[in-house]
């Protein structure tokens, strides 16, 4: 599946605040083991609903997201590894 080139998808760090989306794929290779593990702990998974809520005041980094019922903060660099389909 050549998901990253699908025109309907964006990397998570480009998703606008308040836009709900569904996780299409996660590039686990782009993250180190601990980071990947922590993302899984937060419930990141293909098909999960996600919504950016807030951006950090400096350089719009980190990003606060709603994942399932949780709100988590990750850095922009981590968000880039997550490909999502916006639900508009």
């Amino acid at each position, binding site marked *: 599946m050549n998901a990253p080139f699908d025109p309907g998808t964006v990397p998570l760090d480009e998703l606008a605040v308040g836009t709900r989306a569904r996780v299409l794929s996660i590039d686990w290779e782009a993250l*180190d083991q*601990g*980071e990947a*593990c*922590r*993302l*899984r*702990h*937060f*419930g990141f*998974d293909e098909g999960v609903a996600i919504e950016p*809520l*807030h*951006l*950090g*005041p*400096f*350089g719009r*980094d*980190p990003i*606060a997201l709603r994942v*399932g*019922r*949780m*709100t*988590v*903060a*990750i*850095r922009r*660099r*981590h968000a880039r590894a997550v490909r999502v389909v916006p639900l508009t």
Partner: protein
Amino acid sequence: MNPLPLVAIAGNPNAGKSALFNALTGARQKVGNYPGVTVERKSGRLVLADGRPVEVVDLPGSYSLDPVSPDEAVTRDVLLGRQKGERQPDALLIVLDASNLDNHLRFALQLIELGLPTIVALNMVDLARRDGLQLDQAALERELGVPVVETVAVRRRGLSELQAALDDMLSSPRCGVHAHVKSDLLHLQRRAREIATAAVISETPVRRWTHRLDAVLLHPVVGPIILAVVMFLMFQAVFSWSATPVDWIASGVAWLSDAATRILPAGLLRSMVVDGAIAGVGAVITFLPQILILFFFILLLEATGYMVRAAFLMDKLMHGAGLSGRAFIPLLSSFACAVPGIMATRTIDDQKDRLTTILVAPLMTCSARLPVYTLIIAAFIPDRRLVFGVGLQGLVMFGLYIAGIVGALAAALVLRRGVLKGGGGGFMMELPKYQLPSAKDIALGLLTRAQIFLKRAGTIILGTTIVLWALASIPQAAPGQKQSEVSIAGHIGAAIETVVRPIGFNRDIAMALLPTMAAREVAVSSIATIYSIDSTEDAASASTLEDKLRHAWPLPTALAFLAWFVFAPQCISTIAVTRRETNGWKWPLFMVSYLFALAYIAAGLTYWTAVALGL
């Protein structure tokens, strides 16, 4: 004698484990470290309805049995019965956040697979209801196959039901633990979602409080302003609220010192008690009010959920120096005192981030430096107005603060590229719901911090001050000799003098450096003592200490002395707390060496530049 049955409390971070632990054990708690790691072990005692005592241990919050941090590794190892310094738990109490079941159930399922006798506390049911979530406790019990009790730990609700369930469980015979059954994480996660969906009776979407608050507190413009105001108020409180209790402690120390002087006969013993123990420990104990007030705020920020928001706001800036947003509050606290700052680094998950933060924390200008700065600035910097009512003296003081901050950021960058390379970068945090903390939890936290500090003051700090006293008092000076010269400390001072001579320090400064190890502000009294001894004959010509210093020190020396104090790690409390928090002597020794090296270079550069400029 059989050890007490051991119940381990486990669960996700922010599930309310610690509140439940506090509610179950009250003030009967012990806080220590697991051997070989800097992970806190919190245990307490619970008495069941029939009078049977049970030991309860609060395991570090974890997301799963596949650890990412050292804390999580301890949780896993305790549960599997292979943690040094801990016996295998007899029963397990899993704490779940009722409004976050789909995530928390994953870990719960993993824990239930271990096969230990298990109870689930469905915690924070009040917040879940407030958010419009109705849960089916019976359905959850059926799906999980273990007893489920609804609780609100911070309000102490559901505790008797929980105790009754524990009682039942510990009375029935226990069976062995399965080896770590490794269901894969994704499977568990999907099963957790199924159960969570089955357990939800109804969900009315309510605009949640947390989101309304976050819209303001995490706002890109308003958020940082509010953070600045909160920090400002915190510092105001640290300095204004502490004034009175500091006076009480100071007069208490003075009274004790008088009493000891009256009771004990003149001689070495009296000198040791009065000049050594009471004076030394007294100087350190006067910081207790500031430390406790600071901790009151830190605990409050932590318990309400604001602490991680502050970390979120500051992360990008801290990241620039190779640190994480989590380092912001500990470093800021270090402006009052590095001791609570270093203790507060426990909230930093990443070990290298945490070590870096600990190592640079002493560079923040703590309040103990103020008396030294004030004395030297008053003596040497002319009280001249520059533009717009900005005074030269104030500008120098500001410059010293900036030097500390710049030094800390630069040191962090170097450390992250050198000895503490790698790791880090992993700023990933859960933003928990805002919560009204319970006064009892805050009080318990404060009590624990006070105990840790006082225990240290009573052991390592007492020991060090007595050693410093002995060095300054032995051998006793014969009439006509100066005690400050004949003592061992005098000889060490002479040796220090040869080392610090190139950076412009005279013999008097060299003499003061050793006793100043007790606490930085001791420098003022040491220098005062030296000059009161030496200037008996011309006492009339120079009245105040400032005047005496102006006569005795050239300006470059004074400036070099200021530069020295920006960096020098002259505080045994900080060294002691670093030893405790890093679990060994390696890092405190490293910290002391690099800070002394920096201090030497900074003082030297200042001195040589000032001399070259003809100041």
